[in-house]
């Protein structure tokens, strides 16, 4: 979904979320309406100001009591829509999704530079993940420290693709992209060249700031020192959409 200029004559719909009657612009998604109305829905890949990929599925909700769960970030509101955001079934699904992320790669919070400032860690706590029920894969992933300012640790990557989108849509460099499939899937810089040898990277650091975990970090940070600042994104996005 590209970021568009606001339409002056957009229609308004009314819908019900968790028993609350709400009104929203017809071009909004369920997650946007929930965020405006302080209804908490966990999310990882979704980010205000970036396009929507609906990849992490953490924001799934039940719509009109139907059996098929919908990603709140990728579903537009409709007149008369009825949404449930926090049923037992959704809690169970979200918990399993977060556990699978922990089981797939090597997220060792206690020695991570992002410890205490990590969206995955917060999500685990919020979703009640006090342990991971499935066996860990225990496969090692590479760490690329070739860039003079930044580092990518694929062990911590959850493939949310925020870095890919911010680099393409906001910075306009498209240094980041995605390579491989399944558990071999990885974010790459410039057709899988070492980051430090990238010709397209402008070293702006936007990818580092939007990364929800300790996958993209500043060089020279120690445990718990990597604090990210994501405010720039909504400011830039708003200024652009008002043009």
């Amino acid at each position, binding site marked *: 979904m590209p970021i568009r200029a606001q339409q002056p004559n957009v229609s308004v719909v009314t819908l019900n979320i968790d028993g609350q009657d709400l009104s929203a612009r017809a071009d909004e998604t369920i997650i946007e309406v929930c965020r405006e109305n302080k209804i908490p829905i966990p999310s990882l890949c979704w980010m205000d100001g970036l396009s929507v990929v609906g990849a992490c599925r953490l924001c799934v909700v039940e719509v009109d009591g139907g059996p098929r769960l919908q990603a709140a970030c990728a579903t537009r509101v409709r007149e008369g829509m009825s949404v449930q955001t926090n049923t037992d079934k959704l809690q169970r699904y979200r918990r399993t999704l977060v556990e699978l992320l922990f089981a797939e790669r090597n997220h060792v919070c206690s020695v991570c530079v992002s410890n205490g400032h990590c969206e995955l860690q917060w999500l685990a706590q919020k979703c009640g993940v*006090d342990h991971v029920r499935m066996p860990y894969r*225990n496969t090692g992933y590479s760490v690329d420290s070739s860039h003079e300012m930044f580092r990518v640790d694929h062990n911590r990557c959850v493939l949310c693709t925020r870095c890919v989108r911010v680099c393409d849509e906001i910075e306009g460099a498209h240094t980041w992209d995605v390579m491989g499939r399944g558990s071999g899937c990885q974010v790459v810089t410039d057709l899988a060249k070492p980051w430090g040898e990238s010709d397209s990277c402008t070293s702006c650091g936007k990818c580092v700031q939007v990364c929800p975990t300790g996958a993209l970090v500043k060089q020279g940070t120690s445990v718990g020192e990597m604090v990210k600042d994501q405010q720039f994104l909504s400011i830039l996005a708003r200024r652009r959409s008002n043009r």
Partner: protein
Amino acid sequence: MSNGQPMSKGTRVTVATTWLDGCSGCHMSFLDMDERLVDLAEQIDIVYSPFVDAKELPEQVDLGILEGSISNEEDLHKAREFRARCKVLLSLGDCAVNGNVPAMRNPFKLDDVIERAYRDNVDLNPQIPTEGVPRLLATVRPVHGVVDVDIFVPGCPPQADAIHYVLTELIAGRTPDPSQVTRFGA
């Protein structure tokens, strides 16, 4: 445990603890409860632990607390013994709950790990210990990877407040929700 009844009527709740592959930091955090330990001591009896002299785990214990991950054959034996003898088993800290630092060797082959630790980085008389030490397992696992665990208290280490909350809830016969007070890496 969750039936609203105190864990042990009339008498004190018996508690056993031990450390497996960990740094003993979770036990130190237990001691960090400071003066609250005095009140706690009136409600629980620590029947087996690095804190006390007892050498044998009693046949029946109300609450077992395990720190550390399952990295060698002795850890495995202790975890199974605790599970068999404890009514409620609690994983204390990230190593017990998710493998944490000890499990960071898992992406490597065990032989490579041993070579690295006992030969590659040793200047004087390098040798691999074989006598009087338990054999390492190929894969480090969290405690619930080898036995059923009832309560999980993540954290590296869990704060004394978190341990106190969990213990007092258990003693009162309630099921604690540790996610309210601690998390991975806390």
